C-alpha cells in the first residue's frame, strides 16, 4: 500500500472525507475523487496528471471536517482561504504531496486525441507509446514555479508569450486582449475553477440587480468581466493557474494574473497564500501601514 493511501486512510479516521485523485479519467489519467472509506481510499493516486486544484471545493464544504491532498500551489490556495477566514484551519487536514512537474493534459490531448495514453516515468514522457518533448507539455505554472525551480524553463512557450507581452505597449496589449477575449463564451469556467472565487452564486458578473455587466457574449463584455475578475483577485491570487487550465478556448489568463501578482509584490511585499496569519493588503484599510512605499 502506498504511503499516500495510508495517509488518506489515517485522515479519514478524523474527517470521514478526503479530497484526492483516482485514475478514473479517460486514458487512465487522474480525475478528482472523494474518498469516504478506507476501502475507497485504496484507489488514491498522485502523479503528474493530478492537475486540478482541489482547494476549490473547500469553501463549499466549510461546515465540515475534510482532508485534502494538495500540491505546493494548491496549499497556497488553502493558506489564503484560511487567511481570509473562508475556511476553518481546524477543520481542514492537508496531506501535502511533493509534485513532479504537472502535465498539460488538455494540450496533450488536443494534439494527440482525447484519451491518448500518457506514460510518465518522471524522466521520459510518452504519448500513445511515442516519445514526446516534455517541456512542450508541462503546465506553464510549473515552468515558473517558485517552490520548485525547473530545468526545462528555457523551453517554455508560455514564458516566451509572457516576454512578448512585456514589450508590448498599451495599445498593442489592448489589441492582443481584444483578440483573445473575442473567443470568450462567458462559461465562467475560469471563475468556477478558482479557489479564491468563492462568491459563487452571488458573483458580481451574474447579478441581475444591480446589473453590473451586460448580458451579451462578445469581446467587450468578456474584457469587462475579466478586468473585474482580475481586480477582485488582487493580492489574493495564489497563481495556481486553474483559470487558464479550465478555459475551454485557451485564453492565457495567467498573463493578467502574473502581471498583477508582480505589481502586488512590488507594492506591498505580499504574496498570497504564504502566511495564514497575514492580512491580505487589499482587505485592510490600514492606509498608513507598512508596504505602501510611504515614509
Amino acid at each position, binding site marked *: 500500500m502506498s504511503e499516500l493511501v495510508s495517509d488518506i486512510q489515517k485522515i479519514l479516521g478524523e474527517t470521514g472525507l478526503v479530497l484526492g485523485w483516482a485514475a478514473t479519467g479517460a486514458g487512465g489519467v487522474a480525475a478528482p475523487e472523494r474518498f469516504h472509506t478506507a476501502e475507497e481510499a485504496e484507489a488514491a493516486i498522485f502523479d503528474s496528471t493530478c492537475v486540478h486544484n482541489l482547494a476549490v*471545493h473547500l469553501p463549499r464544504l466549510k461546515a465540515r471536517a475534510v482532508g485534502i491532498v494538495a500540491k505546493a500551489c494548491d496549499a497556497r490556495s488553502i493558506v489564503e482561504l484560511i487567511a481570509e477566514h473562508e475556511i476553518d484551519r481546524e477543520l481542514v487536514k492537508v496531506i501535502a504531496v511533493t509534485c513532479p512537474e504537472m502535465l498539460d493534459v488538455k494540450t496533450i490531448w488536443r494534439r494527440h486525441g482525447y484519451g491518448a495514453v500518457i506514460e510518465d516515468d518522471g524522466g521520459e514522457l510518452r504519448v500513445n507509446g511515442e516519445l514526446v518533448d516534455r517541456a512542450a507539455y508541462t503546465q506553464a505554472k510549473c515552468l515558473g514555479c517558485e517552490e520548485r525551480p525547473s530545468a526545462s524553463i528555457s523551453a517554455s512557450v508560455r514564458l516566451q508569450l509572457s516576454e512578448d507581452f512585456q514589450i508590448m505597449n498599451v495599445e498593442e496589449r489592448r489589441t492582443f486582449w481584444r483578440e483573445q477575449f473575442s473567443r470568450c463564451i462567458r462559461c*465562467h469556467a475560469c471563475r468556477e475553477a478558482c479557489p479564491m472565487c468563492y462568491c459563487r452564486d452571488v458573483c458580481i458578473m451574474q447579478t441581475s440587480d444591480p446589473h453590473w455587466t451586460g448580458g451579451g457574449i462578445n469581446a467587450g463584455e468578456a474584457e469587462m468581466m475579466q478586468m473585474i475578475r482580475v481586480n477582485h483577485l488582487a493580492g489574493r491570487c495564489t497563481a495556481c493557474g486553474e483559470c487558464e487550465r479550465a478555459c475551454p478556448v485557451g485564453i492565457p489568463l495567467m498573463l493578467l494574473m502574473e502581471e498583477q501578482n508582480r505589481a502586488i509584490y512590488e507594492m506591498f511585499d505580499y504574496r498570497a497564500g504564504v502566511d495564514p496569519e497575514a492580512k491580505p493588503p487589499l482587505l485592510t484599510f490600514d492606509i498608513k501601514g507598512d508596504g505602501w512605499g510611504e515614509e
Partner: protein
Amino acid sequence: MKFISSDAIPELLEALSASSVVWAPRELTGSGGTVMFERWRTGDPIDLEHFSSLSAKDVVLPRTEKLFGYTYAFGGGLGGAFGNGAPAGEQLVIEPAEPAPPAVLFGARACDAKALDVLDALFNNPEGEAYNDPQYQSRRKSLTVITLACTTCDEACFCSSFGNGTSEKAGSDIIVYPVEGGLLAEAVSSRGEALLAEPIFEESEQAPPPLAETARIEGLERLEEKLPRLFDDMDFWQEISERCTSCGFCTYGCPTCYCFNIHDEMRSDREGERQRSWDACMFALYTQETSGHNPRPTLAHRYRNRINHKFSYYPENQGKILCTGCGRCIRGCPAGLDIRDVLRAALEEAPREP
C-alpha cells in the same frame, strides 16, 4: 460520388462566400490548440483534422443576437398605462432585426449536423403546427451543411450510441469523406445536389473510406422512463455531481443545448437593443426568481435538470434525445466529469425506497 481536391477547397469556400457567410473550423492563434467554427475569410486556414472544442451551433443559435432595437421618439405615446408603455407624449419605435444572410457550414461532423435535426424538432416547425422560432428558422432555412465524415474518433466520442453514429445523415446537405488528395462528396439533399453540380466538383468512381465506430452505451432510450423515477433521489444527484465546479462549459460547448436569456442592452435611457444570448442551466441565476426563490437551489438540482432535460424531458416532448454523443462536454470539462459515467449510473441505479 463527386471529388474535390484539397487544393480546390479554398476556391470552393471563396465561391461560396460570394453569396453566403461561410463557417469553417480553424485553429485559433495563441489559443493552445483551440479549434472553433469561425467565419471563413479569404486566406484563412481550415482545420479538418482536429475535433473542434466548441460545437457549430453558433450558426443557428448565435452567442448573442439582436431581437429588435427600440427608441423612444417624441409624439404620439399614450403613457405607460395604455398600450405600448411609452411615456406620455412619446412613441416607442421598434426596429426589427435584419434577416440573417444565407450561410454555409463547412466541416461540421455528423454529430453537429444531427444536432441541427434535433433542434429543428423544437425550433423549426411548419407555421401553425407547433412552436417555431422565427430567428432560428430563418437561419436554418438558408443554411447549407457540408459534413465531414469521421474516419477516426477519440475516446470521448460516443455517437454510435445514437441511431446511425458516424454514418448519420440527418441535418446534412452534403457529406464529404476524407480521401487521398481531397474529399469525396455525396449529396443527401436537393440543395446539396445542386451544389455538387458545380464544375469545381469532379465525377469520381472512388468508394468512400470506412467510417469510425465509437464507444457505445446501450439503452439510452430507456432513460426517458428511468430518470423520472430517480428524480427525488437527491443522494444520487449529489454523488453524481460532486466533482462538478458549476461552470457552464458543458452547455456552451454542446451542439444541442439551446437555453437562452433575453436581456435589454440600453445605449441610453431612450434607446437600446433587446438581445438573446446563450444561458446555461448550470448557473444558479438561470432559475433565480424575482422573489428570491430558486427552484434549483444547489448544483445537484441543476445537474439533475441538465441530464433530465437531455434524456427525459426533450425525448418526451420532442421525440428526440437532446444529445448526439459528440463528447465535447467530456473533452472540455475542467473537472474531468464524464457524462457517460452519469448515464451508466442512471441506467443501473434502482430507485431507492422512499
